[in-house]
């Protein structure tokens, strides 16, 4: 589904990703963990197509297409979704109007008719229940004055409405209490199936207690330095990122 090869990317002339490789197949959940500054957010931004990031080398293939050739909206149309670490507040744009536009623009991209009011409402009610979202939240301006938990639930609510093929969760657990993490994780787990995939980008292991990854990758200094099963996340939590750094310096000395 997603194949990233030898990706070099950065911002404002600074190289952050330096030869990043990753392959994700349908049905899989991958977690990327790493200390601050390792390149986690850069990866999420490059995948979603944020314009101030520059790719200097390497390739990204998504469902057979060259992802780097696509605008952010086309990437979304193709089935890529980024849950933002810091969802943007937009005063004056109602959440419901935003989501309706999003759902129907993606349908248009795929050559489908827009959802009529009844079908949209039905889908929305179902997903609102899943994410424990109150109706009043949807009539408010997008993310404006939302609590941290409301913002993150709203992200996963959008994901539920759009039903992407690959969802990237960028530090979705940051700023959430345990109850909110449970709701978010439950939403993500409900949406999982054999045809879609999830990439969890996180600093901490705790979200991975609820969204169980098939693979854990450790990102350090712009590259994946270690991959393993879900137990790797626990090991990182126990021993901290220091042990990875030590392993690397030992390797480099050898």
């Amino acid at each position, binding site marked *: 589904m997603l194949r990233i090869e030898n990706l070099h990317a950065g911002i404002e002339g600074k190289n952050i990703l330096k030869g990043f490789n990753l392959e994700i197949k349908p049905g899989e959940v991958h977690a990327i963990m790493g200390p601050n500054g390792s390149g986690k957010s850069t990866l999420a931004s490059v995948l979603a197509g944020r314009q101030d990031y520059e790719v200097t080398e390497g390739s990204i293939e998504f469902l057979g297409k060259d992802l780097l050739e696509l605008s952010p*909206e086309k990437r979304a149309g193709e089935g890529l979704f980024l849950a933002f670490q810091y*969802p*943007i507040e937009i005063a*004056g744009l109602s959440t419901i109007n935003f989501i309706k*536009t999003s759902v129907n623009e993606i349908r248009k991209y795929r050559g489908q008719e827009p959802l009529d009011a009844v079908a949209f409402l039905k889908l929305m009610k179902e997903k609102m229940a899943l994410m424990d979202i109150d109706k009043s939240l949807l009539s408010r301006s997008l993310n404006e004055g939302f609590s941290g938990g409301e913002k993150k639930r709203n992200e996963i609510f959008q994901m539920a409405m759009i039903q992407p093929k690959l969802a990237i969760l960028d530090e979705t657990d940051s700023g959430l209490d345990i109850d909110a993490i449970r709701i978010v994780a439950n939403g993500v787990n409900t949406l999982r199936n054999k045809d879609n995939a999830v990439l969890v980008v996180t600093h901490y292991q705790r979200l991975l207690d609820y969204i169980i990854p098939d693979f854990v990758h450790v990102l350090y200094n712009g590259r994946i330095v270690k991959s393993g099963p879900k137990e790797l996340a626990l090991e990182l939590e126990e021993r901290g990122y220091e042990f990875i750094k030590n392993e690397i310096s030992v390797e480099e000395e050898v």
Partner: protein
Amino acid sequence: MNTIEYFKERFDQIQSENGSNGLGSLRQAAFNAFSKMGIPTVKHEEWKYTRISGAFNKEYKFPVNRMVNHLSEDDLKAIRLPGSEQANELVFVNGIFSFPLSVIPSAELIVLPLQEASSNEYKDIVVKHLGHSSNYLKDGINALNTAFVQDGIFIHVKKGQVTQHPVYIYNITDARSDNIFSQPRSLLHISENAQVQLVETYATIGLGESFTNQVMEIIVEKDAMVEYYKIQNDAGHTNQVSSTHIRQIGKSYIHTVVISLNGGIVRNNLNVVLEAEHCEAHLYGLYFPMGQTHIDNHTVVDNVKPNCLSNELYKGILNDNASAVFNGKIFVQPNAQKTNAYQSNKNILLSNSASVNTKPQLEIFADDVKCSHGCTVGRLNEEGLFYLRSRGISEKIAKSLLVHAFAIDILEHIKPEPIRMYVDRLISERLEFNIT
């Protein structure tokens, strides 16, 4: 044409015909002031960024009341605003008030020629208030209007009456056969405990040049409430100076929304004088020019008495080569303690060649007041744009959603629903066809 000489001829002609009426001396004083000051140029501090003198190099017809033009019902139909079937309709054609075209179903509303009102039971009101705006508009263009005040009207809302139907005021220029210079003039008197909604718009028929130099003076008595909406969406070959002067002479409430979308040069002077304690004034504005349009909003909020509240928010969206000016003055006079006065001006530039000059000015002579002002000029929020696009929304639609979101907190202050929906539609259409 030599502007001053041209207008002097017209002035002398009228003065010789009805020089002895009650307005004669006011007119004479105003004309003397105009002769001295002339049309303001960019050297005038208040006109630094708005050049109207160029428009006076053209030949205009300046109609006086013997030349009233008769519009057909079809002409009017194209100009009417939504909700007009429920409204009082006051129609000016080429600056002359037309009784035949006006429809006034509300009994609480008295509409008379100023000339007549200056000599009947309303004489005291007219004498006391007419021309007060010249204290604030110290330039020749206001004086020029006042020099020809004889064709204006007097509008009176009776004491304790709530006007059930809004008052729509149409300033129509018929430029089908000539270039037209017009000067609508009105004095509105909102009596004690009365309420009224005013909606005003401008329309030019035909392809001749038009220049409208309007002055409206609104007197608000104790416990009265006034809502005033101005919609400017005239053709690109029309210019106007529109001066609205509001005096709150008793504890009262006013709410104004100025929407400026189209025209050649549009200059608005909005002055609000809070002359009694516990007055409240809300001023909102949205300008969204495109092409070569220039829109200039000069506002003055003058706090004369203590314990008043004013809140002002003007927002601008500029596309293409459009330009705009915002100049907002707040005065707090020495006696006006406990004044709360807020002002904000926010602008978004959608193109590299659009420009805005914004200048907030606070002049505070009292020490126990709360005042704030601020202005911003920026581009569309890139982060917001990326967020929307990452949800599959095309760049074009994302931009129009963001611009609309920016405008909405002005639009929601338009209380009459048909007018709000109408303006919203004009803006949505503009976004659909002109944003790339």
